[in-house]
């Protein structure tokens, strides 16, 4: 009888115990003394047991959300101060071009920054949960994917294009495509139309382990690259005409639930 009562009490307390665990896991938000949110830290490629693009928490929820390009056009205001009007970024490489990027890629990067898997203390105050919701992320990503990519991106010096092409075609193209178009279903970013200086910076970060949400396969691939190799391949890819790879505006409808859902499903399938 006593055992029975104890079992009942234990069962009743179970949800409380589970709740306590949730609370214990939630990290308190860090802010500066004036209340500016500080980017959290989550282990990335530097940690053992790192899983690239693990489908969890905000990433999963943003991918599942039904992105609306109309709402995205409004929500994007906050991004324009740095990424400029039309999300064209800056040729000096300080801020990347986002226009025409795959929505899945954008969702991955924003949620990785929010979680602290990709270090970006400058962006964090403008992309944290106080500023944009998970729905906003989905809306912004879908809207950005519909924006045209123009050929006026920043280019390199043009000195090592033959080397750049050779390097690109001996590996990069397998994931990023022959025309640098990337692959949204696999979260591989579009590279064509991107600013040269941004590409150099990020490829270097990936090679050196500073971009902590990087794909280990890519880190392995570019490990032997010298700085000159990186500059050559970035220059080559920055010169691939983006016009050939621009996503048609009609794709907006395809980006709605089916497409986003497919991306998640496809990834989950490949992960198994």
């Amino acid at each position, binding site marked *: 009888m006593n055992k029975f009562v104890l079992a009942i009490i234990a069962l009743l307390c179970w949800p409380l115990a589970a709740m306590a665990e949730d609370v214990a896991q939630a990290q308190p938000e860090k802010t500066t003394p004036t209340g500016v949110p500080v980017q959290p830290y989550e282990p990335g490629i530097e940690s053992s047991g790192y899983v690239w693009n693990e489908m969890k928490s905000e990433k999963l929820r943003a991918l599942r959300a039904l992105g609306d390009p109309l709402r995205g056009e409004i929500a994007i205001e906050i991004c324009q101060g740095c990424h400029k009007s039309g999300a064209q970024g800056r040729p000096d490489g300080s801020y990347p071009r986002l226009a025409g990027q795959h929505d899945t890629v954008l969702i991955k990067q924003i949620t990785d920054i929010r979680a602290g898997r990709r270090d970006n203390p400058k962006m964090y*105050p403008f992309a944290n949960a*106080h500023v944009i919701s998970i729905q906003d992320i989905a809306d912004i990503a879908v809207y950005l994917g519909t924006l045209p990519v123009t050929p006026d991106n920043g280019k390199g010096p043009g000195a090592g294009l033959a080397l750049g092409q050779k390097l690109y075609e001996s590996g990069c193209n397998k994931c990023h495509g022959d025309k640098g178009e990337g692959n949204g279903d696999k979260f591989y970013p579009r590279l064509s139309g991107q600013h040269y200086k941004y590409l150099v910076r990020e490829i270097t970060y990936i090679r050196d382990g500073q971009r902590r949400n990087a794909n280990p396969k890519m880190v392995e691939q570019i490990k032997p690259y010298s700085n000159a190799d990186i500059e050559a391949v970035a220059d080559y890819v920055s010169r691939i005409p983006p016009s050939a790879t621009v996503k048609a505006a009609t794709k907006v409808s395809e980006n709605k639930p089916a497409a986003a859902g497919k991306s998640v499903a496809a990834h989950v399938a490949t992960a198994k």
Partner: protein
Amino acid sequence: MKKMLQNYLVKTAEQFKGCSEAKRQSMFGVALAAALIAFPGGASAGEAPQVVTAVCGGCHGADGKAAAPMFPHLAGQYNVYLKKQINDFIDGRRKNDMMTPVVTAMKPEDVGAVVDYFSAQKPVAGAAGDAKLVETGMTFYQEGNSDTGVPGCVGCHMDEGAGNKQYPRLAGQSAMYISTQLANFKSGARTNDNGSLMRSVAAKMTEQEMNAVAEYLASVGK
């Protein structure tokens, strides 16, 4: 309401150790409260509500064009923004020893009329300032500072400080008011910005950048 006002007066008296200063502030509060009691009621369309002429107008101008550079122009400001600020003064999210007693004494039904009135007034036209500072400020307004991670203001506050329903209009605003607010966001004296956005921006701005962008904003707007 009366109790809140009393509390405010006690608090003000504590804050200002100089007796004459405390007295001056208290009297200001009492005078305003008296004015609010003396001039109740709403307004008919187009005309200034009585509370505007009796209270707000003293500093902000009866037409929303402020009488002195330390006070913000309210003419043409988005009513959603004005309403938020009034509510924040009442709730203590924005702190200002002059504004809090005034808006606390205001009838809740007057707030809507006041903000709609000021919002409908013709905005203040920009006034030419120090040309070099204006130019530096314009560049900063558009580009921000990518080295320190300050976004261009234009992203949210729109071309030439026009603002929108989410972000206030800044065009033609008093340079002194803008630079003071930026400094307050930086020091943490002002913390009622949505999502800590302006605190994030101002934290990374230099005093020179604040002054330049303020000079630019005071110069724009027709």
